[in-house]
């Protein structure tokens, strides 16, 4: 099987970017990634763009063609949608095209422009990532609140442990210039912030963000020694009410098992992990389901000052921001940029769609002998 190299990457600033259009963000990320790869736009053979709802946020329903039109040779281009996992599924689609030897070098973009509409409209659009829950008036914070309550009841996880996830990720984001927030917060700040859906406070929730990210993938090494070493993709019921368990994401567990096996490593080998912390409880689920700690111990594990892995070093979705379609690609772009600097050799990216209906795990490796 061919090896897939990450040869370039870029991430725009994440945040409320009123002066940037979706088009601006995509162009910024795409051409910066191509430049990072020391390639020319004409070297891109195909484009895969992850995006959840440009048709609803922006009225743009032909995103693939829009992105292709930025290039002088109009490369084949397609949009991939899987709610908040749109970016990582765009990655997987691109990787499959490379492994099928259809192309040698492709561009993967993740993008979302969310702040041009009222926040309640955004809440409504994001609720479209669920099923009948939307008609039953539930919001995504409401669904994750139910998951948090189930975890708290079964494992005695506390509000302070949830808050600690936000505190850690806000601290990590201080070192990330692209992050939406550069502000330290305390456990008390989180617990005293307004309640959104009990037990989740405002500061337990990731923000509404604009942003884009891009990576260039190739079956040719170019100058890179960073590869996609393993991938996993799994699904679960779309409706939360149909789940067998409310204290774990079976999709994450399955995707992680696939990715570890393909990369021939275990959870203990991961040095840094970018995880899907759309709400603080989601990172607690992630550290357990990815096998970083025992089931039910996620809150305690994250509370440790020194964990085996660096957890959401970018600031995660919570503090770096969560432009939904961009997130899965941003996780990999961020890890790629840090690995180029020699920070880690084996890393993991974990991206969730909905309340665990879709899970995608990527493992990145680097080494001189790859």
């Amino acid at each position, binding site marked *: 099987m061919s090896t897939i190299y990450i040869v370039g990457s870029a991430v725009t600033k994440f945040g409320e970017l009123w002066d940037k259009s979706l088009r601006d963000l995509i162009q910024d990320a795409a051409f910066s990634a191509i430049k990072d790869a020391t390639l020319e736009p004409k070297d891109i053979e195909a484009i895969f763009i992850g995006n959840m709802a440009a048709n609803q946020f922006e009225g743009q329903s032909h995103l693939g063609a829009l992105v292709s039109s930025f290039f002088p040779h109009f490369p084949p281009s397609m949009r991939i949608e899987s709610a908040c996992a749109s970016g990582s599924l765009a990655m997987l689609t691109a990787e499959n095209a490379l492994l099928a030897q259809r192309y040698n070098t492709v561009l993967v973009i993740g993008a979302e422009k969310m702040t041009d509409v009222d926040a*309640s409209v955004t809440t409504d659009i994001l609720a479209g990532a669920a099923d009948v829950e939307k008609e039953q008036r539930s919001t995504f914070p409401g669904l994750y609140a139910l998951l948090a309550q189930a975890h708290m009841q079964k494992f005695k996880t506390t509000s302070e442990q949830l808050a600690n996830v936000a505190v850690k990720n806000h601290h990590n984001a201080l070192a990330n210039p692209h992050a939406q927030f550069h502000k330290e917060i305390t456990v008390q700040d989180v617990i005293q912030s307004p*309640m959104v*859906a009990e037990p989740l406070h405002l500061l337990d929730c990731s923000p509404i963000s604009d942003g884009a990210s891009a990576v260039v993938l190739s079956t040719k090494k170019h100058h890179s020694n960073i590869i996609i070493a393993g991938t996993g993709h799994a699904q679960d019921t779309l409706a939360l009410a149909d789940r067998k368990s409310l204290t774990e994401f079976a999709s994450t567990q399955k995707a992680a098992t696939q990715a570890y096996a393909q990369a021939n490593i275990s959870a203990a080998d991961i040095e840094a992990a970018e995880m899907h912390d759309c709400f603080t409880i989601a990172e607690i689920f992630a550290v357990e389901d990815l096998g970083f700690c025992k089931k039910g111990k996620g809150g305690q594990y994250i509370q440790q000052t020194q964990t085996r892995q660096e957890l959401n070093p970018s600031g995660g979705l919570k503090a770096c921001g969560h432009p939904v379609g961009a997130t899965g690609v941003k996780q990999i772009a961020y890890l790629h940029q840090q690995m180029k600097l020699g920070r880690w050799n084996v890393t993991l990216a974990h991206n969730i769609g909905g309340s665990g209906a879709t899970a995608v795990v990527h493992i990145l490796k680097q080494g001189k002998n790859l």
Partner: protein
Amino acid sequence: MKHAISPPRYYRNSIKWIQWIGKTGKVIGITTQQVQQSNSTSHLPLQIALVEFEQAQLLLPIALGGPQITIGTKVICTLRKLSSTTENAVIEYGLVCRSC
């Protein structure tokens, strides 16, 4: 005011209500939402319960004005008016649960 569900979809949902009305179940999860969808006219805060019925689990809003519901409370599925004004001139009803 935008309607939460299009009238044809509302009709398709409504013909399934009869399967659930009068069924009793147990609350296994509950939250209180302080934020709602843009097209919802529900009162806030809105309590949502995950209810375990004999046939399946269902996520349901909790009817206003009844006794307090917590995890473990036995509830009955019933029909309530969910909103009173829509631009489609539909008075929207839907399934909710209340203590029994």
